[in-house]
């Protein structure tokens, strides 16, 4: 199977700040975890994969095609990212969740129907008309996930999805992500090991903007090859 993402010496700088440097690796179709300290460049990497930004140097391929300024938008139509801090439009849950469908030309009724289905799968029936911004943290995370899933993306990028979540919410989200992983690619940046082990098959460890180690999740967690990886894992256990 062809890799979904191929990174070739990818770097990203913001002015003088170098966020990522010399990233070269592939991401296949299996659920992937991106691990690292805060500031290591996880979010930046996800943003590049989401098509929200372009690399300062190097090349990214998506399904074999080079990602350029011109086709960024079509990339974003099939790749959706959930941010670390959930953000909503100043509207109802339903309006937020149907947004992506509406701008793709889906009719109002059809969009609402699909939205309700997705909300139900996240145990959010009845929430449709509430103001999204006024929900609890856990509820907001679920709405944000619904908003992404209803679009049936090919790739779902999650930036610290289970941070600050009570176990109940985390479980529901975990289940839904697992369900999605059967059809599409999930990439999660996190330092929550319980879920990493359960949800992902493959992992990348980043430190100071560089790839330190990659491998199957279980292998990386149990037998890290690099000293730095070991230190990171120890620090968090």
């Amino acid at each position, binding site marked *: 199977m062809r890799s979904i993402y191929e990174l070739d010496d990818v770097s990203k700088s913001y002015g003088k700040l170098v966020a990522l440097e010399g990233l070269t690796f592939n991401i296949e179709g299996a659920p992937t975890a991106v691990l690292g300290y805060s500031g290591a460049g996880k979010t930046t990497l996800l943003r590049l994969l989401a098509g929200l930004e372009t690399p300062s140097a190097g090349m990214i391929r998506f399904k074999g*095609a080079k990602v350029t300024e011109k086709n960024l938008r*079509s990339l974003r139509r099939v790749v959706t990212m959930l941010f670390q801090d959930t953000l909503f439009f100043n509207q109802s849950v339903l309006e937020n969740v149907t*947004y992506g469908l509406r701008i*793709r030309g889906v009719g*109002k009724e059809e969009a609402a129907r699909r939205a309700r289905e997705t909300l139900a799968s996240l145990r959010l029936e009845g929430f449709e008309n509430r103001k999204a911004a006024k929900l609890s943290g856990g509820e907001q995370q679920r709405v944000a996930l619904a908003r992404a899933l209803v679009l049936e993306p090919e790739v779902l990028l999650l930036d610290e999805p289970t941070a600050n979540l009570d176990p109940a919410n985390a479980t529901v989200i975990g289940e839904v992500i697992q369900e999605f992983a059967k059809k599409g690619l999930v990439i999660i940046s996190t330092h929550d090991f319980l879920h990493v082990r359960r949800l992902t098959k493959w992992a990348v460890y980043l430190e100071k903007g560089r790839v330190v180690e990659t491998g199957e999740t279980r292998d990386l967690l149990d037998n890290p090859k690099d000293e730095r990886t070991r230190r990171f894992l120890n620090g968090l256990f």
Partner: protein
Amino acid sequence: MGTEGMKALTTPQWPLVAGIIIVTALMGAYFLYPRPKTQMIVSTTTSLYETGLLDILEQRFEQKNPGYNVSFVSQGTGKAIETAKRGDVDMILVHDPPLEREFLDGGYGVNRKIIAYNFFIIVGPSNDPAGIRGKSPLEALRMIKAAAESGTTFWVSRGDNSGTHAKEKRLWAAAGANYEQIRTQTWYLEAGTGMTATLMLANQKNAYTLSDVASYLKNSKQGNIQLAKLVEAGKDTLNVYSVIACNPQELPSAKFDVAMKFIEFLISNETQELFEVFGVQDYGEALFKPWIPLLRSGSNPELRQWVEEYAYFEGNECPIQYRYNAGNLYG
């Protein structure tokens, strides 16, 4: 990479498009809606405008000529003429013969017609500290100047290049005073604006001022001022009103035909009769005296001579070189 059938207009964009269409339609109507009536603009003086006579004239003219809409722009005579030179109006109705001459000379105007006259008056506090009551205009001014210099009173001037202001300057010169010099004195106040405001200022300061009859009577009646009429009709204080059409050869945007119609209207018997009665009911005397009857009947040769001396150019109200398509305007 991710092909998708896309509707030309996705739903959230509808309100935007509708909004653009509505706004464009509204703006189009506002700016392009054709104005059914022909617009003619007359540049005139504030003292004439403030009497309300012009509104009546406008109504009557528009009644007789429903396809036209007459508007008056009132400023001081100086400004009125400047506006006309720029071609922003179609004719002028002012009372300053030297400036009118200049206007004709410069080619800006044609077909001048005198339509009415009245007198400037000197008004002041009723206790008359300078003692000018009943004196001749020039003597009165000298006495006012003396009294003002000794601190007993003030003088208020229009100070706005209006016809009244121009008259005032000439009177000071004829009285032997140096205008530029007295202008800087502390007793000489410049209102810089219309006749009513000037009168009210004089009222406040218990000062003397030069005013046209109409403005004085009107403001007196309204109770705005308590000044008294101290020096009335005299040769030096004659005030003559004329109309001049803007010259279409020089100012091509001027609506010459309408202007000519209006001039004919102003010298018609009906309008001249209106001049005779306007103000009598409210103030006890006519604010303006019609010129045409005086011209035709010859009933007051002395007055007629005053007017010809003051307001005629080379023995004629409008020498031939300043006429253009005048029809039988000059009989």
